[in-house]
């Protein structure tokens, strides 16, 4: 854990994991990058627009017997809406993403691009489009392309494995399967990242420290 003062506003900021070199200052939204030379500013993130997500930085829970804490978020927008990707830091220092879109949650961890052998994935990696409903094989399971859309970063907060600059544009393709598995391929000019996981319900994560929302009874989990 590294505690430094924000070079922009002087507030204390914390870097908890060496794998997560990016930190958005909680007070002035300055994006900071940690390196061997120290901490430097790379710009200012936009203020997050108001939403009623039940998740917040500091929400804790368990997934497959591993405790996690929510430590960061990227909010993505596309022409017809927006979604959140919450960064989960597990007790064993691994990290994963909790995607939150249309009231549904998916828990995804990054996998090497080399795992994608199916030619449909290869074609996507080469920058080609894919039709909704296209089937692609991964680990002996058939994944089906559920949607493909262009998205751009609206804002980010907390700790992150990469810099999420407002306006950063990606192409995102989501896959589903008959078993509840889901996967996402995110591509920009510089390359692609692949995330694999499954749909989860909030309840099965036994979350605590959910965000209180006025007028709504918080479910008793944990």
């Amino acid at each position, binding site marked *: 854990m590294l505690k430094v003062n924000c070079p922009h506003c002087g507030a204390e900021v914390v870097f908890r994991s060496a794998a997560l070199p990016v930190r958005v200052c909680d007070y002035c939204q300055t994006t900071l990058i940690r390196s061997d030379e120290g901490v430097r500013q790379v710009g200012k993130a936009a203020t997050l627009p108001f939403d009623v997500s039940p998740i917040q930085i500091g929400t804790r829970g368990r997934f497959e017997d591993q405790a996690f804490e929510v430590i960061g978020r990227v909010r993505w927008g596309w022409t017809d809406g927006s979604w*959140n990707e919450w960064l989960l830091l597990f007790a064993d220092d691994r990290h994963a993403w909790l995607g939150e879109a*249309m009231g549904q949650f998916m828990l995804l961890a990054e996998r090497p691009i080399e795992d994608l052998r199916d030619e449909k994935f290869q074609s996507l990696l080469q920058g080609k489009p894919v039709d*909704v409903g296209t089937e692609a094989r991964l680990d002996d399971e058939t994944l089906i392309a559920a*949607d493909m859309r262009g998205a751009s970063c609206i804002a980010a907060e907390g700790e992150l494995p990469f810099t999420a600059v407002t306006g950063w544009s990606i192409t995102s393709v989501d896959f589903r399967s008959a078993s509840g598995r889901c996967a996402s391929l995110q591509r920009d000019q510089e390359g692609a990242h692949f995330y694999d996981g499954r749909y989860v319900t909030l309840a099965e994560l036994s979350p605590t420290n959910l965000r209180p929302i006025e007028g709504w009874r918080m479910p008793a989990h944990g």
Partner: protein
Amino acid sequence: MDDPAAGAPAAAVKALSCPSCGGAIEIKAAGYTVTIVCQYCSSVLDVANPDVRVITEYHEAAAALEIPPGTRGTLDGIEWEAIGYMRRSEGGSYPWDEYLLFNPYRGYRWLVTDGRGWSLGEMLTRTPEWSSPSGLFVGGERYEAFFRDTPAQVDYVLGEFYWRVAVGEEVVASTYVRPGWMLSREANGSEINWTLLRLLKPKEMSEAFGVDVPPRSRPPLPHQPSPYHGTIGKVATIGFATLGLLILLLILFSGRGPLLTERMTLPQTGQVQSATFGPITLDGAYQAVSIKARAPALDNAWVDLDYALVDRRTQVSYQAFGVAERYSGRDSEGSWTEGDRSSAIKMATVPAGIYDLVVDASATRWKTNPSAMIWGSAPRTGPEPIEVEIVASTGMTFLSNVIFAGFLILIPLGFMFFRHAAFETSRKGESDFSGTAAQDDEEDE
């Protein structure tokens, strides 16, 4: 964070002013909601971007909704707030209503009705598995194809939605059903969404949202379970169990041919003749004993028969009475006959033992035959004695009772099967995959 005062609950709503009428609008699902329809002027607003702009304006009066936006109700112990409303149709025909429900901790659900009942829908996160062109599997349950690809459009919207809803927006919809459940597939160019809908009981819906639901819908909803289905199962179980028991009794009580065949000769004078036949050995714990008497030569006379089955050991006696009678004559309409030359009686449950059959029998001539007197044509038979054959056997008459009982059981069962079949025919009548619908299509062409 949005919430500088740590610990205080986040506001549940975001307020904005309608750029069309200036009315104050509250967004309930801020961050998810893309489209909101102003409750005052019905303008459709785009709130995906920070600058709220008017997409289309509606100056029609807002429809008097069964569930006005903002209404909360509890289903399965979870509180939901109705935040959006859409009226949809197939190109203007077969309209139905969809209400969007929201709970910030639970996400979204749909309440769907076409006036015949309400269903609660949840978007599926898994893709169904195809089993055949007419069905598919979700979570191990099979769903039958019901409506094939039909265009579904949005005719009217009010409230807020998580996507950019627009009047006229069209998807291609298909429907699959199993009793109580419906699976809906909606596809447009960029997305395929599956929604699983559970048919709500009228009571659930009225308790949750104070909506009156017709208890019976005609024609039935595609996913309405047949009300006879469960009852048929119960009635059939009880019926067949009873029938099985009766057949078991029949086997236990049934006989193995006649126990005894004897003859008596009776003078036609009314004088009682007594005879004892036996022994009759009854092996079963209990059995029915039937005794038949037949007098082939009987004419214009009757035979009275008093039977007593007497246990040789205990002297317990089982008694019965029978009569055989036969009359004939001739009147203005021709010759006539009446009566039966034989008599059959049954003793229902006779215990095991060795018995004697004691028969007290008498034959009497019918002396005063008015028609014979008038027409003088009655055959004058002499006073020669009448021969009566007596046959005792076990069980056999019991069979007719079993058949009768079987009928009594099968009639209501058959009736219920008929009603069930009629319900299913009516339910499937609307399906694109039923025989009748296929015929309709041909007629249309």
